[in-house]
């Protein structure tokens, strides 16, 4: 296997990790082009959309290379994006050679989420109750919003683990979070039902696709921007329909 094959492998691996875990399209393209150029490749071109990456370059005096990877999952783990960014920066500066960079990237790809799952659920509860307070709730609403937001977070994670359908998981999470909020108010925990429901839904807000859609549209990656925007829209619609279902059933 020649050098250009190896470079192609690490570039595409880096791009795949970044795109899967929520980097903007422009960052993926720029990182891959820089890495390939740092490995003395000529004629480097990269095209990334939300669902795939194409990379082509030419090794001096040899053939052209062109490969693509398809990216199916879009998760949110900004820690991995940061780490890949660090590896690519060191690679471009010449502090890493191709082999160590590959080892590091495979390590990053296999690494688990930096925070344990219970901490993620707990902080979903804290974020939900905090935002229910900021949106005009009162002190007694903190506890029910906390419980409902934790339930929402647990539901979305567990449903996605077993069903593997993202939008169904979000729909069910919004439904169960809304139901829990209504039930808690019904049993006398908390007063402002609207604020509690809003708080319980906050952990589902599609913050990463929304921000990235704006960034991609602005930097001229129109295809990627529009597709990310519609992803965020789909998520918002499934949340809205889930909680609407709960409200029309129980309220």
């Amino acid at each position, binding site marked *: 296997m020649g050098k250009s094959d190896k470079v192609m492998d690490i570039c595409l691996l880096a791009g795949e990790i970044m795109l899967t875990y929520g980097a903007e399209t422009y*960052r993926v393209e720029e990182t891959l082009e820089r890495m390939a150029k740092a490995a003395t490749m000529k004629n480097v071109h990269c095209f990334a959309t939300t669902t795939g990456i194409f990379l082509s370059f030419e090794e001096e005096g040899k053939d052209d290379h062109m490969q693509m990877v398809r990216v199916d999952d879009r998760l*949110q783990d900004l820690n991995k994006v940061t780490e890949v960014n660090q590896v690519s920066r060191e690679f471009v500066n010449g502090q890493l050679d191709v082999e160590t960079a590959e080892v590091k990237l495979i390590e990053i790809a296999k690494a688990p989420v930096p925070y344990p799952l219970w901490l993620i659920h707990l902080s979903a509860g804290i974020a939900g109750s905090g935002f229910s307070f*900021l*949106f005009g709730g009162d002190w007694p609403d903190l506890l029910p919003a906390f419980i409902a937001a934790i339930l929402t977070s647990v539901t979305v994670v567990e449903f996605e683990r077993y069903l593997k359908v993202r939008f169904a998981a979000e729909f069910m999470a919004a439904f169960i979070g809304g139901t829990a909020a209504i039930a808690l108010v019904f049993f006398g925990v908390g007063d402002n039902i609207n604020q509690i429901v809003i708080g319980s839904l906050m952990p589902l807000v599609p913050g990463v696709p929304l921000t990235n859609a704006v960034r991609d549209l602005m930097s001229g990656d129109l295809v990627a921007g529009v597709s990310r925007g519609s992803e965020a829209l789909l998520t918002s619609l499934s949340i809205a329909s889930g909680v609407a279902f709960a409200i029309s059933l129980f309220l």
Partner: protein
Amino acid sequence: MFIIELIICFIATIGFGVIFSVPKRALLLGGGIGVVAYTILSAGLYFDASPVFSTALASLTAALISHFLARYVRIPVTTLAIPGILPLVPGSRAYFTMLAFVDGEYLTGLEYGVETMLRAGAIAAGLVFALAVFSFGKGIGHRYETNR
């Protein structure tokens, strides 16, 4: 009272940072940016500015700070900007839009819906403008080939 809101905003923003797996060294910075954004939004509302304008101003400030800090601590901008703008997300407007449509009050729903869209657009406008400021000279989204 306002201090308590700010503390709660700080903690909630950090909670969101953990949900999005923001790296540990950026968590507190993201929380701080969220607090600044929320302060500006509340100040705008307090001085009777329109909610959309206050949101745009808050989002612009948050995005500018995140661009600046991201350069300083060398991490991608999004890891700071995403928690930073979360306190501005019009969650309650979106919820009341949905509620009005469920109750069949379509006109009220449209009213809330338009406000939700405008506020979301204001957040986007702030992000875009900050990005434009930090891309001066480097170039982004050209229209004329002026150096021909």
